[in-house]
């Protein structure tokens, strides 16, 4: 299951510096091929774990490694260009779609911008549109396009469809699948079990700040742990 791009968490505690930890003593390999879904009840620490992987937050204890190097040895800006992230509510920057893409890559040309937009299933005509006029689904796909401009090896997705309607949700899911099939590792937080069953190549179930189960969907379906079964929507 381990791949060169896998993340290793060694005895990781994470959460507020001066409060109770959200994650406690996590030892885990997060696979970085295909789509890995982080699942589990609300408050389990899924987003907290995801934010450790591109160092938007640091653990309060333990160590996170990627490509054999502890994350604190990476330049944070270099790491984040290789480990990109999209969020639950797509953060729109002021200006046009093209100007949004320029934030990720200041010297991006119109041709490349159009190409990356089409890659995520958006029309190149949108380049001149004000970004805040996009629909929720379009905005999320633009955010993926923006993230792709840094040519990342890994895409972290923190409940990227939670704020979208059903039709938009499907387009963003399909995009995640397509990126994974093209060789990018996708690590996706979801508590939508239907989505998990459609998308996941690997599943990590977190509960109460600890790892409850790791494996392929078929393995977790066979679990006798009710929290795991519920988290993956086992039949």
């Amino acid at each position, binding site marked *: 299951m381990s791949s060169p791009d896998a993340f290793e968490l060694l005895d990781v505690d994470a959460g*507020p510096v*001066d*409060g109770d930890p959200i994650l406690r003593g996590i030892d885990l390999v997060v696979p970085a091929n295909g789509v890995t879904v982080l699942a589990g009840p609300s408050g389990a620490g899924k987003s907290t774990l995801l934010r450790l992987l*591109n*160092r*938007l*937050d*640091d653990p309060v204890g333990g160590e996170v490694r990627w490509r054999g190097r502890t994350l*604190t040895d990476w330049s*944070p*800006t*270099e790491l*984040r*260009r290789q480990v*990109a*992230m999209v*969020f639950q*509510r797509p*953060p*729109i*920057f*002021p200006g046009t779609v093209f100007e949004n893409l320029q*934030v*990720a890559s200041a010297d991006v040309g119109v041709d490349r911008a159009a190409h990356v937009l089409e890659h995520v299933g958006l029309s190149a005509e949108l380049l001149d549109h004000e970004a805040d006029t996009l629909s929720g689904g379009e905005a999320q796909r633009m*955010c993926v396009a*923006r*993230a792709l401009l*840094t040519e990342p090896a890994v895409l972290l997705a923190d409940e990227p469809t939670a704020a979208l309607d059903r039709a938009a949700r499907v387009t963003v899911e399909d995009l995640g699948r397509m990126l994974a099939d093209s060789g990018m590792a996708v690590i996706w937080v979801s508590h939508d079990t239907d989505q998990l069953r459609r998308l996941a190549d690997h599943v990590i179930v977190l509960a109460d700040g600890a790892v409850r189960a790791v494996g392929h969907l078929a393995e977790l379906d066979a679990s006798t742990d009710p929290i795991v079964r519920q988290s993956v929507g086992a039949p």
Partner: protein
Amino acid sequence: MLAVEQGDIGVVGLAASGILVAVAVAISLWRQLGLERSLLWAALRALVQLLAVGWVLQFVVDPDDPLVFSVLWLLAMVSFAAYTTSRRAADVPKVLPLSLLAYTASAIVVLGVLFGFGIYELEGRTLVPLAGMVIGNSLAATVLVSRQLLIAAIEQRNVIEARLALGLSSTEAFRPHLRQALRTALVPQIESTKAVGIVFLPGAMVGLILAGVDPADAVKVQVSVMYLVLGSVATTTAVMSLGISRELFTPAQQLRRPAQRTDG
């Protein structure tokens, strides 16, 4: 008639101007505003504070006294302004040392130009009031810019972190918010500078003319004071905002979370 001679309105004149406070109190009573006590207290406090300052200033600005008293006075003003800023923007990280730095930098730059180019002669009677203008006028803008930056860091967190997640440095990620906060602090100053003379006559000029100075000379002093205010507001807010921007992020380019309140 009360005659104004050599800018001295005399004790009787001062007392007579108190009639205007009585007018304000009368309006408060008439419209049942309940502000009579506040008005009287404010008027009395202003009188006592200014009398006290005037009394001390006599010694500070005395040409026979060494400049060290004026410098001490300046240091006291800087400290008091920094303390006031830290009270009014209490949640801003490192607000006290940063505002001390900002007011000091502004005083050095602005007074450096005014005295360095010989615009005013360096003595107690120029140093103290000019430093007062530098610091007094920067105070509101400094508090405003500090609060604006903190609010941006809290309310725009998702946008700032999205920029960080694209591999931008914290400086780049926060730049639009820094620019906005500085503009918010400086624009009112620019507007009032543009309106001066048309919409209102500034206090320094009014004071000089009332004190018997030729209006043409009063204008020159006033213009230099306005430029001083612009320069000092710009310097103070720039130093303050750059300092706060650094404090809002960790060395690993992470946006810090607002300090947890430990009181209560």
